[in-house]
């Protein structure tokens, strides 16, 4: 696990949650509370000077809040699963898009594929494979777990250090 890349990833996730959906996040201290463990998961693949993938898992109550805040909905619980999953896909898309220049360099051109909900909406990062960086955060009344998988090493000039 790369501590520098994990720190950069955490900064990007916290900033994106706040600016995109007015959700405030902080590093998760200790194990996540049991009631927050029901998670919705999304993944995205990217290619370019660095290839890899990202997985993001968010507590379901926070997902409803995320979608409600993004859409300005009065009743977030009334939003459909499709709307909530679309918000989750957009969240990981924005996080990935903001992270890649920080680890790959400002002039590197990446292609970010369309984010997808894994079959069965698998919760947790168990099936994602080995990760190079991770960010575990508490968000409002839930948690947000983000894992980054890189197919090669981080370019020396890319990672902020």
């Amino acid at each position, binding site marked *: 696990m790369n501590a520098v890349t994990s720190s950069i990833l955490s900064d990007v996730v916290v900033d*994106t949650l706040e*600016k*995109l959906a007015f959700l405030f996040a902080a590093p998760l201290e200790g194990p996540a509370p049991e009631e927050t463990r029901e998670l919705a998961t999304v993944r995205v693949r990217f290619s370019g000077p660095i290839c890899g993938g990202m997985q993001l898992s968010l507590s379901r109550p926070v997902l409803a809040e995320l*979608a409600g805040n*993004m*859409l*300005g909905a009065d009743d977030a619980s009334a939003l459909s699963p499709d*709307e909530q999953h*679309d*918000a989750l*896909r*957009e969240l990981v*898309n*924005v996080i*990935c*898009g*903001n992270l*890649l*220049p*920080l680890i790959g360099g*400002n*002039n*590197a*051109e*990446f*292609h*970010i*594929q*369309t984010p997808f909900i894994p079959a069965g909406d698998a919760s947790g990062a168990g099936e994602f494979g080995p990760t190079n960086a991770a960010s575990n955060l508490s968000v409002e009344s839930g948690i947000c777990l983000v894992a980054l998988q890189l197919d090669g090493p981080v370019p020396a000039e890319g990672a902020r250090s």
Partner: protein
Amino acid sequence: MAVNVLIVDDSAVMRAMIQKTMKLSGLQLGEIHQAANGREGLETLERQWIDLVIADINMPVMTGEEMIEHMQANPNLKTIATIVISTEGSQTRIDRLQGKGVRFIHKPFSPEMVRDTVKEVLGSEVFHERSH
């Protein structure tokens, strides 16, 4: 003058966010059209009178950059004001887009960033008096 807007983004949530931002901006809005990718965007541009295109870059079927290239090659479409709202972080790609006369807004964006950029592109006269 009411401004007809085309929003091109593969995320319905993001299209709704941009539409809401436009409505709150004080812009004198006419019709708002939506498309889920660059191909659908071009089809809408062929059918409708559009004054302002707001487009993402990374989309399936046809990217925003490809859509803008098609617009540039069409005399009827190349003068339409275009703003890209994207997570794009590559300065090389942003410079390439800006070289085509396209304005760029980075996601996540604030409503003020969108309002100010639309004002720069279309002028203050297309906004209601209270937003000046």
